Structures are given as C-alpha cells and as structure tokens.
C-alpha cells in the first residue's frame, strides 16, 4: 500500500460522513492516519471502516485530557495501516458509545479508559473496574490533568509524599 491509497481511504471516509463529522484529517506518512470524529457518528464510522476498508483490528484506546475536553483515541488497524480516530468528549458529560459489539477486542481497553480517565463506555457489557484497586476512590482518575502525584497521594493515603513524610 502506498501513501496515496491511504489518503484515499481517509478521503472516502470524509465523503461518506461529511466534513462536519469527520474533520482535522491528516496522513503524516505511509501506514499512519489521524482524524477527528463526532461522538454521535462515531459508531457508524467504525462500522463503515470495518465493513468497507477491513479495519478489523483494534490496537488500543488512549484517553487524553486536552485541558478543556477529553479526547478518546481509537487506534484501528487494517493490515499494516494504523488509523487513529479521535473522539472529543466534553468534560461535563464524560461518556462515549461502546464499540465492543463491533470490535470485540476493545472489551478491556474501554474498561481501562473508564478507570484511568473516567470516560464511561455506554453500552459496555461489563464495565467493571479493571486496573485500579477495588478500594480506590471513585472520583480519582489518575490520567486527568487536575490530579498530580501529590494530590492523589493526599486523597488516597491522607498524607503527602516527600520531605514532610517521616
């Protein structure tokens, strides 16, 4: 596959869903592409990519705190072509639609994002805690930028780290 073919896949996706739903696309090099996708259309986009372009593999899901919103990045892969779909999520409504029924491999990654960033996968068959300890406070999501190591320590253990600890 060449850079042109990869760019064509991205163009086709924009044409199918319109540039208000798929935007900020870029193909930085061969085998890599990035695009922003609206949360409402996201499930349809994943289904379309899976059926039409053979993106059957999900590598992982990264959750990113962008400051004024969250961004959930879905790294799909079809053969060697890794396509990262970014779904912006507003901070006052931290939810994304689950894609476990489309791509079964996402089952653990969605739980991981729910643990570490606190973005809930709606429609996940079993959205239990996966990574953090069972007694970890419900409202502490370590990958949110407002939590630094000192604050987490104070909240979880009730004391600070560093010089004032004997």
């Amino acid at each position, binding site marked *: 596959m060449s850079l042109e073919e990869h760019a064509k896949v991205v163009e086709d996706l924009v044409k199918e869903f319109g540039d208000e739903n798929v935007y900020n696309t870029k193909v930085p090099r061969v085998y890599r592409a990035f695009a922003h996708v609206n949360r409402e259309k996201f499930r349809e986009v994943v289904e379309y990519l899976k059926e039409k372009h053979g993106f059957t593999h999900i*590598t992982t899901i990264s959750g990113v705190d962008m400051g004024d919103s969250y961004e959930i990045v879905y790294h799909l892969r079809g053969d060697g072509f890794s396509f*990262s779909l970014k779904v912006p999520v507003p901070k006052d409504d931290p939810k994304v639609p689950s894609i476990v029924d489309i791509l079964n*491999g996402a089952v653990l*990654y969605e739980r991981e994002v729910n643990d570490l960033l606190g973005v809930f996968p709606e429609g996940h068959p079993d959205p239990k805690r*996966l990574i*953090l300890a069972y007694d970890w406070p419900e409202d502490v999501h*370590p*990958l949110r930028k407002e939590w630094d190591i000192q604050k987490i320590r104070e909240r979880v253990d009730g004391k600070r780290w560093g010089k004032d600890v004997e």
Partner: protein
Amino acid sequence: MSNREFVIPVGPQHPALKEPESFLFTVDGEVVVDVEPRIGYNHRGIEKAMESRNYIQNLYITERVCGICSNAHQTAYTGAVEEVGGIEIPERAKYIRVFMQELERIHSHLLWLGVAAHEIGFDTMFYYVWRDREIVMDLLEEVSGNRCNYAMPTIGGVRRDLPKDKYPKWHKMLDTLAERTNYYIKVASTEKTILDRAVGVGYLGKEDMIRLSGSGPNARCSGVPCDIRKLSPYLIYDEIPFEHIVVDNGDVLGQVLVRVLEVIESVKICKWVLDNIPEGEITVKFNPLQRLPEGEAVYLVEAQRGELIHYTISDGRNMPYRHKIRAPTMGNIPSLVERLKGGYIADIPIVLAGIDPCFSCTDRMAFYDEGKAKAWTWTEGELSKYRKEWYSK
C-alpha cells in the same frame, strides 16, 4: 450459574506469569466454563510518571516497563519521539536496533519454549533449552554489557557500536543457536510427550482470533498473518529477507512451532545484519533540554509477544504531554480467555503460559573487562565503595 458450577480463583500470584494477573475460573467438574480476568496488580502509573519527565529520563522508564521486552519498548519509544521531532537517525543505528531486537526475540522465544516444556512436565527439554539460551544471553552481554535492560537505543541512534572484530565469533554463536533450534523443531513436531499435551489444547480458530484482535505468535499460530515487521515495516525491515511465519494449528503446538520457526528467522536476520551493516556514525546529538515541535506519532513494533504500540503527543515542551503504551499481553488477554473456555483444569497452566509469560531474570551483577578478559562479581558493599571512590575523584 447452575449449582454444578464452582468458582476457582487463580492468581494474582501465579507461577506462569510475571505480570501478576488474577483469573476467576468457573468450572463444571473438570471443564472450564467461564473465565474472568482482572489485571492491575502491577500497575505502576508509568504513563502518568512519563508526563512529568523529559524525553531522556523517559528512556529509562520505558525500558523498565518489562524485563524481557525492554528493547522492544525502547525501540518503540525512541521511534515515536523521533517521528514527532523529525529526527533522522543514522543508517548504522537502524541496523544495530534491528540486531538487538532480533537477539531479544531469540532469547525471549527460547525462554518461553523452556517454560512451556516445564508447564507440560517435560523438564528435560526445559533444561536443554535454557542451557542453549545462555548462548544468546552471552551474546547480548557481549554487545551491551547486560543480560536484560540493554540500554541500547537512545533518541537519535544507539548508545554502543558493534565492534567489527567480534563478527566472526558472533556468526559462530548464531550458527550454534540455529543448529540447536532445528533440533527443537524436530523434537516439538515428533516427540509424543509434547504432542499429547499440545495438540488440540487451547484451540482458537482464525475468525475468532481476528474478532478478538489478538497479535503476535498467539495470533499467527491461528493462521492470522499479523507480523508488524511485514505489514507496516519500521527501521530497515522492508529490506531484510525473512519469512512471515504463520501456521494454522491454532493450539499450543502451533504456538510452539511459530516461536521455534521465528527463532530460525531471527538468526537469519541477525546474520544478515552482521553481513550488510554499513559504516558510519551511530548517533546524532539530542539535548535533554531540547524542545520537540507540537505533534503526535503512533509507532508500532513487533515485540516478541505481539504488537506493541507507543502513542506520544507533544505540546512543544521537552516532555511528552501524553504517552500511551499498550503492551502485547493486554491485547492477547481476550483471546486467551476464549482459549481457556471449554478446556480442562489440568491444561490451564500451559494455555496461560501459551501467550508467553515473562520472568524477571537478573539477580546478579557481573563485570566484564574486555582488556583483561575476565569476569568477577561485586557485593553491595564493594559496589558502594567503588561508587564513593568514583565520585570523590
């Protein structure tokens, strides 16, 4: 759950896996009905820690994500950072990175083969394989000074060169490895002790494997061609002639075969690298305080256990805004769960070990002086004395 079914917890301290993982098995008599994985017992907050350290400091963190895949993690990390920063590394450095990556693959696959033999109660083979693994461990130690955590890749190249006068010796060592591995291929495909415990155990077909997004030898043994080195070549893998090993057994025997056949390919790649490596610089300068431009990069690496991804976002500072790591074991758990269902309790260890466990191996410290050609060990006290003398100079 009917009243015939029992729940058995296995783990978190499980002998077959270095990463402590817990599996809740629901069993009906001898048969496994359902499995529920729970991870996170070894969660160290590495991704969060990386957000507050600069790119050079993060090299040391990524290397310690895992003891066996340390070089794969560093290759992926440096690759991602160089892609964001637009840093072009010298040709020779690419060859050395590939050389290290393949040596690590050989050592990891042989380690796995020994563990798998142990799990099915074939300890003779375990001792044989681990004896032969020492050849590649010696080779790694000669190249980098370490048996694991080699600290070879750095941002902008590699940290140590391959001395030319050693090539004939390394060729010989690699030949011995290939010879021994060929013997294990013969043993694995004919020996009744292995076949009885491996054929049809933990079976998963191709469709299920694609559906569950497995990767690495775990997926290639089910007939899914998913070697990142072939699909999305990085470094110089598009120039190297080697086979894409895929078998369609789908069971534990398939996992054994994929790995031993890959060892042969890795030996071939190492020998090819030694024959074709160009002369030149091994690194370009990278300042720890250097700021990278804004940007992001996804870097995929075929680690020993499967597809490894590093995704880095830079916001223009000298540290990453966000760095995401997904190690292959996590991606293989959903398919592992499917493999376990319908099997017997007695087969749990080998099927669990099938996706490749990982042992922390270094508990010694040896020093090797090339000039004097002798090795010695130090106690903690001697080491501390050496440190004090070194820093008071």
